[in-house]
């Protein structure tokens, strides 16, 4: 059971652009096998156009007399989409991910979607051992004021240099491993280009993940669901720890 949060249970206008639940497999399951197994059973819930992301790798060969380069492009992820494209299932080698795009449907819906996809996956592929579980939340927050005073909104600050002018660009990355569960939190906060309104904006990209748990299979919902809940609590409490009340006011 999650501890009582010391922050609002939810916001009417959360800044979440995308929320992801991701399962890493402990045995080789190719993207194609996942796609072949899930396309039909998930067709009713995810009838939208399927999208792909490719991995582009550039190889440069540097020799005394010449420099040559070649690029390879290979399919990395296939996304099955819902009718309006806001719910997605990502299929990659050894990875299954469930995505919710804005407007954020809430944790209950996100995890229910994950359970539905997991059920279909186990029915199609049989018991697959789990190697990792991760949650990722990506937020975009437009800040009033131009330039915005970051200290009013973020508790994370790199002080100094104010006399040189307003901050034009920044990015910060943190990584933390918490005992005893060895949960890994990775946080990236960065400036992001302004939107159509011209307001300065930041992105907060927060991942809570673990690969340290009692061996269990993807179908053992009773085993992984408490871990996912724990990671969700970790993600929420970490997010709340880096923002100010003034920032919270932007989500209301």
């Amino acid at each position: 059971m999650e501890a009582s949060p010391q922050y609002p249970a939810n916001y009417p206008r959360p800044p979440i652009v995308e929320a992801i639940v991701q399962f890493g497999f402990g045995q080789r399951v190719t993207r194609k096998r996942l796609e072949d197994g899930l396309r039909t059973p998930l067709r009713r819930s995810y009838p939208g156009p399927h999208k792909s992301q490719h991995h582009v790798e550039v190889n440069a060969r540097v020799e005394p007399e010449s420099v040559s380069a070649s690029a390879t492009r290979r399919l990395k992820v296939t996304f099955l989409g819902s009718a309006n494209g806001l719910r997605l299932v990502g299929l990659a080698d050894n990875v299954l991910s469930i995505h919710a795009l804005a407007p954020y449907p809430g944790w209950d819906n996100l995890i229910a979607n994950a359970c539905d996809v997991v059920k279909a996956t186990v029915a199609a592929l049989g018991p697959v051992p789990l190697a990792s579980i991760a949650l990722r939340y990506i937020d975009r927050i437009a800040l009033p004021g131009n330039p915005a005073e970051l200290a009013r909104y973020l508790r994370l600050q790199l002080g100094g240099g104010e006399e040189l002018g307003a901050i034009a660009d920044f990015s910060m990355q943190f990584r933390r491993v918490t005992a005893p569960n060895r949960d890994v939190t990775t946080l990236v906060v960065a400036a992001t280009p302004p939107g159509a309104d011209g307001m300065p904006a930041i992105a907060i990209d927060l991942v809570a993940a673990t690969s340290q748990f009692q061996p269990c299979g993807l179908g053992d919902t009773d085993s992984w669901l408490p871990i996912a809940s724990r990671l969700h609590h970790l993600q929420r409490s970490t997010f709340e720890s880096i923002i100010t009340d003034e920032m919270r006011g932007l989500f209301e």
Partner: protein
Amino acid sequence: MRTASYKAGMPFPDLGIVPRSYARAERLDAAANAAGVPGPRSRGPVLSTDAPPALQWLSDLYVHVFRRREAEAIDVIYAKFDELLRQSDCADCDEVLANLDVNRLNITATLAVLSITRLDRARLANWRRFAEMAQRKICREAPDRAAALLAGLLPLDS
């Protein structure tokens, strides 16, 4: 001879999960490049929190509930669901039910959604899940009144 390999793409760290919204950013960059738009590319992720116009009303609804504007919230629910249910295909309405966060509604708004959609539940694949979440919420927040509030709307197998 030295051979080096570089991963092309966003300068943001690869955190091991592929988000869809970053792909949008890459497409925006590609479109800007193709159109010859000057300026830096991929300085950071280009992300949008704007809900699709068709679902903007959901955000409005949550704000009405949060600010205790109950009449406005109910008006939005009845107007929008009525509009969605008039469509011959209930797919849009069903997607709204799949995206509706019952935890950002109050009991009155939750009951309003249940009551307006109940007659069409056979056409709405996500109705049952929404109803289960609504039932849990109402039993949790108003355990003494839950049976009375849900009378006629639930049980789910009726």
